[in-house]
């Protein structure tokens, strides 16, 4: 308790620290936005709530990490992870997801939970349970008399995340496939009647999601840490963001993602790093309760 109070008073006494935490939070939040956008895509288009989302992220991270171990440059990891995880997502779609789309939502939730356990364990067997990261070897920029430190690697990571997000959004808005995906999301049956091959759309959407996650993981490994069992936390954060923002609300996802990144950093600063996972989960509960109260006012439930 004393620790918490002293942490709080430090934030009040040194306002500049708030800025540092905020910047950190927004940077990690940019990654959350990517992962949540992928989840919202799959959720909206094929009504699958993918609990393996975080494990796609971590797998992408390991792809990049492995490349660096083989002597390849670290920045290559992002596109390679994108491609490799596209393939993994496609296989997962064909083997598992395609068979649960038509079923009730708990089925897809549980199937992807099983998938998540498998992926985490396979990563654990292949790479061991130590935390890993890749050092880009870039300098760190200092502002405000050294109180704010921004590693260049982090800036590059955020830049890549932004470019990736922008290009995916551009793709969804302009390409034929993007149109077909959005049409399927609105009404799959109508889309099928209009001659859209929804099976292909589903496979593409899920692979795209997996690829986005993989690239996000490759960015994470350059700046933060990965470990085989870190996946579930990313999946839960993605759920928090999508639940808070609502489906098909892109600005909402961006705002919620950055906001949750910042909230988590502040929470970790105030309560201690040991509570980081708990904070993500408690945020989910808070968001659910707020949505519940909103719905109750509409005489409806959250379903």
């Amino acid at each position, binding site marked *: 308790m004393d620790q918490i109070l002293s942490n709080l008073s430090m934030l009040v006494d040194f306002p500049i620290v708030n800025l540092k935490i905020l910047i950190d939070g927004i940077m990690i939040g940019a990654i959350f936005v990517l992962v949540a956008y992928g989840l919202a895509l799959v959720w909206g288009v094929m009504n699958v709530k993918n609990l393996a989302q975080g494990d796609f992220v971590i797998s992408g991270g390991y792809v990049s990490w492995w490349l660096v171990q083989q002597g390849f440059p670290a920045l290559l990891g992002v596109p390679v992870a994108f491609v490799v995880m596209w393939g993994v997502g496609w296989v997962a779609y064909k083997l598992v997801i395609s068979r649960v789309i038509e079923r009730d939502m708990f089925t897809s939730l549980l199937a992807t939970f099983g998938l998540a356990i498998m992926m985490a364990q396979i990563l654990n067997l292949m790479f061991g349970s130590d935390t890993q990261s890749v050092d880009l070897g870039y300098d760190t920029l200092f502002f405000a008399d050294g109180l704010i430190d921004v590693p260049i690697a982090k800036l590059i990571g955020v830049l890549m995340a932004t470019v990736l997000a922008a290009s995916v959004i551009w793709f969804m808005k302009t390409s034929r496939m993007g149109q077909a995906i959005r049409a399927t999301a609105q009404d799959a049956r109508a889309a099928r009647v209009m001659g859209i091959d929804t099976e292909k759309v589903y496979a593409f959407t899920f692979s795209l999601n997996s690829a986005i996650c993989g690239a996000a993981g490759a960015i994470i490994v350059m700046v933060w840490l990965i470990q085989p069992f870190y996946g579930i936390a990313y999946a839960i954060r993605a759920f928090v963001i999508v639940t808070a923002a609502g489906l098909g609300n892109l600005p909402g996802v961006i705002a919620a993602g950055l906001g949750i990144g910042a909230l988590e950093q502040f929470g970790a600063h105030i309560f201690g790093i040991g509570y980081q996972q708990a904070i993500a989960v408690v945020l989910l509960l808070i968001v659910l309760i707020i949505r519940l109260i909103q719905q109750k006012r*509409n*005489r*409806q439930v959250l379903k």
Partner: protein
Amino acid sequence: MTAIIEIQGVCKAYGGVVANKEVSMEIKSGGITGLIGPNGSGKTTLFNSVVGYHPIDAGSIKFEGKEISKLQVQDIARLGLLRTFQQTRIYGLMNGVENMLISLPHRKMNLWDALKPNSKEDYEKADRLLEFVGLYEKRLLKSGALSFGQQKLLEFAMALMNEPTCLLLDEPTAGINPTLINGLIDRLKRANAEFGITLFIIEHNMRVIMNMADTIYCMAHGEMLAQGTPDEIQNDQRVIDAYLGAH
């Protein structure tokens, strides 16, 4: 007769579209009240406001003198104000008798009663009401296998099993074979007369509603247009205009 449901100045808009504008009506206790109106006139919106499916923007809805416009669906149902669905909803995987037993009035039970198995009287009551709607022979079939009309009858029997004070029926004859309609009208009337259940019916079929209701309200463009006995409504120029699209 006193009013069991009083609707006062209810407004409801979806975005910019005004579905109900200052709607007021009364449903008399023990009677059969009909609500008619062309497609899109706001009947179903009003109905949904009464049963608690969505919030209203303004006005008040009272059931037996109690304000219900802010209550949830299940709270309203527990007051004895029951509804049937236009798209019939029954438990398709259970047979007729099981459907009836599930519809026992749980609002009248305390937990101790609920933790008892169904009594012999419950079974007899279920059989009697299934007989009443003419489904006794089919009572052991999976109810999902019944025809649409029979499912509607089953849903009606389930509602009676629940011993409501007031029953709201959303287009009870929609999608029913014309030969079954007369039988349904007859049973609705008998339910009103023998069990003393107040009925409030939304109906498209003019012949049906004119045969049954003692008071009829007519809506158009989200507003209450006219009210009166079936004869008055049939001869009301505004109602005729609304249906013929004179606007």
